[in-house]
């Protein structure tokens, strides 16, 4: 941070000089400021090491990174904690990019450079294996005991478990759910939301024909991380799995179940339940189609329900929309892709700081604070008990509606080389939706490429 600003100043001096002073002066000023920036850069890098970072009042400073706090609920909890623990622990909240890819990239750069000063990371559920395999985050198995874990939803715990150890604590969760148009279903004489994909297609086609709704089903089919999540939901709901449960170095995606899953995804386009453009869609476009009233069904994260009825974002009203679990295969179970964020502790910071970070993790994942975040920011709690809390059920309707579905989530493959796997999966799933590859071809390609990637994973 500090370093970047310094270099920036050096540049500004140079630029101002361009018009006013001679070329020679400009070069000199430019040279000096660059050299100065380089020196400052090294100086800024030279810090760290030794004891924990402390504030003026002697309290241990824990630098905590997380995405922007739009609801303000995180900031107020941090303030409360800092007040309670004044003189002991101070949390220094460092805001990170909203784009998780960019955030991940920044953290990785810091870790590579020796750890950086961020002690506590609030980060995506797909990160722990990648960080843990490199020894960048601490093993929390001893602190976060089995007893404590039992109170949490299973999916997020699984996402934090790598090589038999637990590397993170679930902060808040997220799950793919089916949003549907209650009014359109009522008009068509359909009483229940679809339980299977086939039912969904039948209902969608019927409503599309009768009511003229443009989209039957809209989901995220773009060539990006969200496309991977959607493709995996199709595959997992048919019983396919990317990795062997007992040995994550074994890729098992090549199965009739996986092919059936992708065939179902492709048939959405072939049977005109979804338009071809779905292969370019992210959450944003799906949301626009649904909230503008152009779709019967929409797979999205529960945040979308919060936008329904908001006159600025939506043309449909709350009573027109229902939420349920995603459809399942004929004889299978409904599967939701897991999203959400966990806490990770940087293994490179001093033990005292790590201990202080653990204190804050406990505070934040406590029922009281999770409830506060659910009520204030709509963040889905990770503790199972809170899904029965009357106040939450009352205030956050999507939790009441989503209920079980929100707790029955399946994490994406927990692999230290997940980034590479995801790139491949997004590419192939997208090719299937575009009609550039048949489901069989895509699965065969994936089996080969993913195994190739898994074989390169660090030990």
């Amino acid at each position, binding site marked *: 941070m500090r370093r970047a600003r310094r270099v920036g100043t050096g540049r500004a001096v140079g630029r101002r000089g361009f018009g006013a002073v001679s070329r020679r002066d400009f070069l000199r000023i430019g040279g000096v400021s660059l050299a100065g920036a380089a020196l400052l850069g090294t100086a800024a890098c030279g810090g760290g090491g030794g004891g924990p970072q402390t504030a003026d009042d002697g309290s241990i400073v824990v630098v905590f990174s997380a995405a922007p706090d739009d609801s303000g609920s995180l900031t107020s909890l941090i303030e409360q904690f800092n007040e309670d623990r004044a003189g002991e622990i101070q949390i220094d909240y460092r805001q990170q990019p909203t784009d998780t890819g960019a955030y991940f990239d920044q953290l990785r750069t810091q870790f590579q450079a020796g750890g950086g000063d961020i002690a506590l990371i609030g980060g995506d559920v797909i990160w722990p294996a990648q960080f843990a395999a490199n020894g960048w985050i601490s093993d929390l198995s001893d602190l976060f005991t089995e007893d404590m874990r039992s109170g949490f939803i299973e999916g997020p715990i699984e996402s934090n478990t790598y090589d038999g150890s637990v590397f993170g604590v679930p902060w808040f969760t997220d799950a793919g759910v089916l949003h549907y148009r209650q009014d359109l279903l009522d008009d068509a004489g359909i009483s229940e939301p679809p339980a299977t994909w086939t039912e969904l297609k039948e209902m969608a086609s019927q409503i599309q024909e009768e009511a003229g709704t443009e989209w039957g089903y809209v989901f995220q089919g773009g060539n990006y991380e969200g496309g991977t999540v959607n493709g995996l939901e199709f595959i997992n709901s048919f019983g396919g799995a990317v990795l062997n449960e007992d040995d994550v170095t074994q890729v098992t995606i090549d199965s009739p179940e996986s092919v059936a899953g992708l065939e179902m995804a492709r048939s959405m386009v072939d049977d005109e339940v979804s*338009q071809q453009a779905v292969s*370019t869609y992210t959450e944003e476009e799906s949301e626009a189609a649904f909230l503008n009233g152009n779709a019967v069904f929409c797979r999205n994260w529960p945040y979308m329900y919060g936008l329904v009825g908001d006159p600025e974002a939506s043309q449909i009203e709350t009573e027109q929309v229902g939420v349920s679990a995603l459809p399942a295969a004929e004889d299978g179970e409904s599967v939701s892709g897991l999203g959400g964020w966990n806490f990770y502790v940087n293994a490179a910071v001093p033990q005292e700081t790590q201990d202080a970070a653990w204190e804050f993790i406990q505070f934040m994942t406590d029922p009281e604070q999770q409830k506060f975040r659910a009520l204030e920011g709509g963040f889905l709690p990770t503790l199972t008990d809170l899904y029965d809390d009357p106040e939450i059920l009352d205030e956050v309707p999507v939790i009441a509606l989503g209920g079980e579905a929100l707790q029955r989530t399946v994490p994406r493959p927990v692999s*230290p080389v997940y980034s590479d796997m995801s790139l491949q999966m997004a590419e192939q799933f997208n090719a299937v939706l*575009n009609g550039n590859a048949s489901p069989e071809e895509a699965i065969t390609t994936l089996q080969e490429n993913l195994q190739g990637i898994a074989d*390169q994973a660090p030990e």
Partner: protein
Amino acid sequence: MATATQPQKKKRGGIIGEFKNPERRTAYLMVLPTLLIILTIAFFPILYAVVLSMTSSTVTGIGSFAGVSNYVAMFQNPAFIEGLYNTVVFTVISVFFEFIIGLAIALAINRAFRGRGLVRAAVLVPWAFPTVISAVMWRLMFQDQVGVINYVANALGVISQPILSDRTLLLISAIGVDVWKTTPFMALLLLAGLQTIPGEVYEAAKVDGASVVQRFFSITMPLLKPALLVALLFRTLESYRVFDLFWAMSNRELESLSTFVYTGVRISQLQFAQGNAASVFIFLTAFLLALVFIKGFGMQTSTED
């Protein structure tokens, strides 16, 4: 580029001779810090990339020596081949159209007419947009729900599927957007070249009975050549390194050489070395392109001689 070639030329006079001249010696001493900085911030990273590309390095650390295996793997990687193909097609076609249209615009606004200054300023507007912003703006126009271009093309029956879902259509769109965006830049460079051609030459040719076509090919083109080559080189190298337009407009769908490097180095955990190999490949081929312009087409790199 210019800084690298200039000292070379002076060497012909003999380095020792150069240093005997106290004024020149002072000059060299004063340039020295800058040269050192260039060495550390430009040449060191390039060399380091070359080294990395020949090891089995990952983001987490430098690996063992791997020879050219990364380059072999890179050329077998369909993503790289796709990026190379897209980049070459994009560069050739977009620079061609930018040149033709840019030249036409330059010739048109080279004539004195009322409001010329206004037209010149207006022409530059697309170029003044940051690429990422115009890329996102065009993406919206290509989009299936709100996109006006997609709507019109669909209504006319030109396309059978949404523009953004087809890579060929995306590439064509990217070329179109680039032509829209950078033709003004080309026109401006060519206009500067046109204005250096003295009017007397044309008058003399007219007196001699040369036709418009003859005047264009015998006077305008040869005298425009220096400016033209500079403009073409700039545009070719810039198109060759295309990143932001592809990345933002296609939402990471369209691969170019530069997006391949980015994906390898910043997103992937395993293709770090291959990403470095690709960056070395871009550097070398771009360098070759520049050489072709300078040596092959006789482009002047300085005004000294």
